[in-house]
């Protein structure tokens, strides 16, 4: 059974690992992704994440269940924050638990890619000079693509 939360408060990665694995001896691998607020060149003062209450929880619960089924997971945790977050703050946590490493890593990848493209969240950047702008999806897509180029 997946743990899914949408919240303003921070999360503790260690505590979430402990909660997911407590009393379990069948888990052989845990995949984890943490997304954080990135500042490039001291220009960002904060990021505000807006969400669609209700739809967000439903969508996250559905995709977490899909990941559990598709990758035969032994459990997974998806936590996404909203509200105003400063550089360095945690935004999102994905943990996938499996008997073996490959499904744990694949499920983590699947979940974070899905969150990027299908979870109803919108980011607004506040800059040090007092201006603000919504992050557009094209920029976000480009960032995702760039990450893969660096990884490759």
């Amino acid at each position, binding site marked *: 059974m997946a743990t899914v939360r949408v919240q303003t408060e921070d999360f503790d990665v260690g505590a979430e690992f402990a909660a997911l694995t407590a009393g379990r001896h069948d888990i052989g691998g845990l995949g984890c992704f943490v*997304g954080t607020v990135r500042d490039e060149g001291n220009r960002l003062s904060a990021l505000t*994440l*807006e*969400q*669609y209450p*209700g*739809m967000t929880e*439903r*969508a996250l619960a559905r995709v977490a269940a899909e990941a559990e089924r598709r990758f035969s997971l032994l459990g997974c945790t998806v936590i*996404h924050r909203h509200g105003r977050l400063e550089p360095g703050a945690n*935004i*999102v946590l994905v943990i996938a638990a499996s008997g073996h490493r490959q499904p744990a890593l694949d499920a983590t990848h699947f979940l*974070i890619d899905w*969150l*990027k*493209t*299908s*979870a*109803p*969240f*919108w*980011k*607004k950047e506040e800059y040090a000079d007092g201006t603000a702008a*919504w*992050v*557009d*999806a094209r920029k*976000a897509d480009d960032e995702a693509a760039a990450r893969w180029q660096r990884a490759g």
Partner: protein
Amino acid sequence: MDPHGDLTVLYFAWLRERTGAAEETVTPPASVVTVADLIAWLRERGPRHAAAFADAKVIRCAVNQEFAAPETELHAGDEVAFFPPVTGG
């Protein structure tokens, strides 16, 4: 759609800022059948709505909290949300 049916319309991100409303209840005419019809009708509500819906290609929609398409049909009582492409994660 029912000629006298209400819809709850929600706006997120810059659509909320441009329309000046997070939520409104509207009663479109019977000629409004689909999401695309609703956008065309909302656009006529005033300059702020016209500005918000100026470029329909960059607007996404959910009906009753499920992603919807321009041709998705609407029914009285539906919750219809308009927003830009999502940027979470």
